[in-house]
């Protein structure tokens, strides 16, 4: 690698003290990788959703029937 001459020159102070005030900073919660779902879990969820959908449909049908009778 040939050295490239930079326009900017770094400044490295050779004298004096360097002090940094350590102030507590607020922390963010970390990014969250989402876990992948296992096949069993996906099937369970699918079955549960289908079952709920079915129950909802049947209840709706039931309600309609009742209203019809009235």
């Amino acid at each position, binding site marked *: 690698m040939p050295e490239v001459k930079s326009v900017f020159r770094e400044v490295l102070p050779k004298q004096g003290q360097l002090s940094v005030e*350590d102030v*507590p*900073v*607020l*922390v*963010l*919660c*970390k*990014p*969250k*990788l*989402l*876990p*992948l*779902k*296992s*096949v*069993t*879990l996906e*099937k*369970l*969820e699918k*079955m*549960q*959703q*289908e*079952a*709920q959908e*079915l*129950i909802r449909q*049947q209840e709706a049908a039931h309600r309609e029937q009742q209203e019809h009778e009235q």
Partner: protein
Amino acid sequence: MEVTLSMDPLFLAWSYFRRRKFQKCSDLCTKVLEDNPFDQAAWSLKTRALTEMVYIDEVEVDQEGIAEIMLDESAIAQVARPGTSLRLPGTSQGGGPTPAIRPVTQSGRPITGFVRPSTQSGRPGTMEQAIRTPRTANTARPVTSASGRFVRLGTASMLTHQDGPFINMSRLNLAKYAQKPNLSKALFEYIFHHENDVKNALDLAALATEHAQFKDWWWKVQLGKCYYRLGLYREAEKQFRSALSHQEFVDTYLYLAKVYQRLDQPITALNLFKQGLDHFPGEVTLLTGIARIHEEMNNITSATEYYKDVLKQDNTNVEAIACIGSNHFYTDQPEIALRFYRRLLQMGVYNCQLYNNLGLCCFYAQQYDMTLSSFERALALVSSDDEQADIWYNIGHVAVGIGDLTLAYQCFKLALAFNNDNAEAYNNLAVLELRKGRIEQAKAFLQTAASLSPHMYEPHFNFSVLSDKVGDLQSSYVAAQKSEDAFPEHVDTQKMLKTLRQHFAVL
């Protein structure tokens, strides 16, 4: 249609069954049974078809209800020694990542790369936490008993029949069926999986194993499964052990290990897996079992080793790839994690979780061109509001990373709009609010975050810093203590506590 009509209906039903068209198979069997109610072949095939429709791998299913968690009598030691219990995740010396880098779940474990029915629960420490932890996949409410989901599925399967259930359990002569080995096994699976009637299944299994003169390992395994579901773990262990003495079988090892895990004896389970590996060298499910236990004991390094062993045997194992990938991401190697997730994509996994992870990995590996398109795809693939919230939360991080705080603010707000209980989003929103100088708003958000998930240290610590700034030293001290409980090794919390103690000493 003419062709199908001329075909023997039972043969056609079999063909449907083999092609996994269970509904059609079942309908056809029903027709056959209407013509001849005593056709055993059709009856047996229909039970099998109905079972297959709702079949789930019993090894994977493991749901603890609140009662099981809070009123657990099977634990041997209340205060277990470090490294011997699944209940004290922080006690292992495995060198897992700290919560400062890797987010933790309610039970204090680092989040995992792969979720199974049993990983969802964790073991919350208090009743309040137990009530708050979402236990089923879709509802935020916990299951009131271990059978919550099973009961619901059972009733649903009955609802589909207008004229009652296919087999009337109460009128079944179990003793008669137990003597017919060709029918009894299908019937057992039907009762166990479709009806979820564990008591009757147990009766049938007991009669059948008696009929087989206690020599059939299959029935013993089924007995063990029933005992496990009923919470009789020692009886289940006996049955599985007995079955193993008849016939070495991978499944039996897995069931037995499940019993030991439930009894909170991870070391015994590990030994058992190793015994199993002696008989079945390189068996993937056994290796995965070992890796899972290490992971649950917060020993991520050895877990990763075992997941790598899994990949040596089966290089398409999604669980192993996902876990190793997430581990790389949280050990500051997002570019390697990216390669693992890309491998999953090549294998055909196509869901919002994967695209979300790809997006995050791309961003932190400085491949900015792919980041936003990945997140867009993830958003296009979501199936629930919770997932949507998590993705917006992560996009918020990207926005923070590029310094676009307005976008970040909007993202976290969106995350909260989709899931009002997203404590992480509350915390991050609070930090952004404070930057804008709205102290009261930030305080409110932090308090919400802290009450939503007390296991996270961030809201407590932030609240401590904030209170310290406005001069409320007492609240600051209390919050710092909570933060210390959640994450004892956190250096900034320690410093905070030290300065506060000095302050109080001066006063």
